């Protein structure tokens, strides 16, 4: 090892996974290994210090292509380890100087890791996103009209009052529709949260980021015991049928990203 290296930590598990870590490909194609300490095991890999020092990381995290590749590799390792048993996924870019400081962190936060592992044992995380099915109408009134129609036939007496009246009705109808979808999203969340052990609401993603025109009304994660995921999927199907005003997307199963973080990890 000529290049000085640091230790990238993916997750904390109770034991070394039975499935070989050797076959896993980590960040930047690096190898994945286990760092045992304090009765726990950190799943980790060596990364070159040149690309993963604090300054280099800050720069790299701004690079969307780098971030995507790294996040995928991070998730791939965590998902593989999660198949073997409970894991605490660590936040992206959890980097330690060496094995000794990784072991020290395991010892320091051992109690929190152990309780997180206990809570998420035989549990999976499922994600639900709900969008308004009607595309969000823009703020400008009546787009249906072509520009040729504009201005024509408009200066007649009373047309200003009629215009205001029409706009009032449009805005009221819109407001009612908006309240309807928000109420629908709340009902969906209440029903699903009732099935889950725990749930977390995340801020809705903006339409640009999510790549949808439709407005996101619900962005939530649910922690479900493995034997209840069938009930959950059935409830999602049923809710999708009941709530025509919403398009409901389900993702998962995921390792318990939203539920096993250390308190200071600051969930999004």
């Amino acid at each position, binding site marked *: 090892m000529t290049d000085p290296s640091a230790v990238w930590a993916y997750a904390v598990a109770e034991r070394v996974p039975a499935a070989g870590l050797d076959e896993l490909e980590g960040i930047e194609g690096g190898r994945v290994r286990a760092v045992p300490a304090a009765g726990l095991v950190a799943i980790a890999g060596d990364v070159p210090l040149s690309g993963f020092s604090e300054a280099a990381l800050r720069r790299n995290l701004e690079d969307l292509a780098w971030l995507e590749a790294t996040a995928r590799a991070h998730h791939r390792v965590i998902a593989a380890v999660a198949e073997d048993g409970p894991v605490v996924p660590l936040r992206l870019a959890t980097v330690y100087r060496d094995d000794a400081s990784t072991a020290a962190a395991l010892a320091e936060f051992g109690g929190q890791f152990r309780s997180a592992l206990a809570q998420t044992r035989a549990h999976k995380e499922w994600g639900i996103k709900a969008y*308004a099915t009607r595309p*969000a*109408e*823009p*703020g*400008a*009134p009546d*787009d249906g009209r072509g*520009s040729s129609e*504009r*201005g024509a036939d*408009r*200066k007649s*007496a*009373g*047309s*200003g*009052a*009629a*215009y*205001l009246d029409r*706009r*009032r009705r449009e*805005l009221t109808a*819109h407001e009612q529709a*908006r309240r309807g979808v928000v109420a629908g999203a709340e009902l969906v969340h209440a029903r699903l949260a009732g099935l889950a052990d725990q749930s977390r609401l995340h801020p809705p993603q*903006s*339409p*640009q980021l999510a790549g949808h*025109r439709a*407005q996101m009304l619900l962005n939530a994660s649910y922690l479900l015991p493995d034997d209840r995921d069938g009930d959950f999927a059935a409830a999602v199907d049923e809710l999708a049928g009941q709530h025509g005003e919403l398009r409901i997307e389900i993702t998962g199963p995921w390792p318990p990203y939203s539920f096993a973080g250390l308190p200071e990890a600051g969930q999004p």
Partner: protein
Amino acid sequence: MTVPDRRRRIDADPESVERGLVSLVLTIVELLRQLMERQALRRVEQGTLTDEQVENVGQTLMALEDRMAELRDHFGLKPEDLNIDLGPLGPLLPYDS
């Protein structure tokens, strides 16, 4: 379009700067238009305006809307282009007002 790499990176080609400026200005005008419209509707609902005042306000807002649509057409902007993402505060204009 074969724009030299350097120009593309700093993105200072006059056309895109102008377009950005136009959409910024029109976004602000659109914000004011929506605020005025809501204020006008509130006043009408309160019944404090005479019929003639209501008619005038309606005509003004109608003309303003037409003018906005013309300006958007002229600069090739869609209604949804006129918005600013304020990050954690959300968009400046509601997506579905």
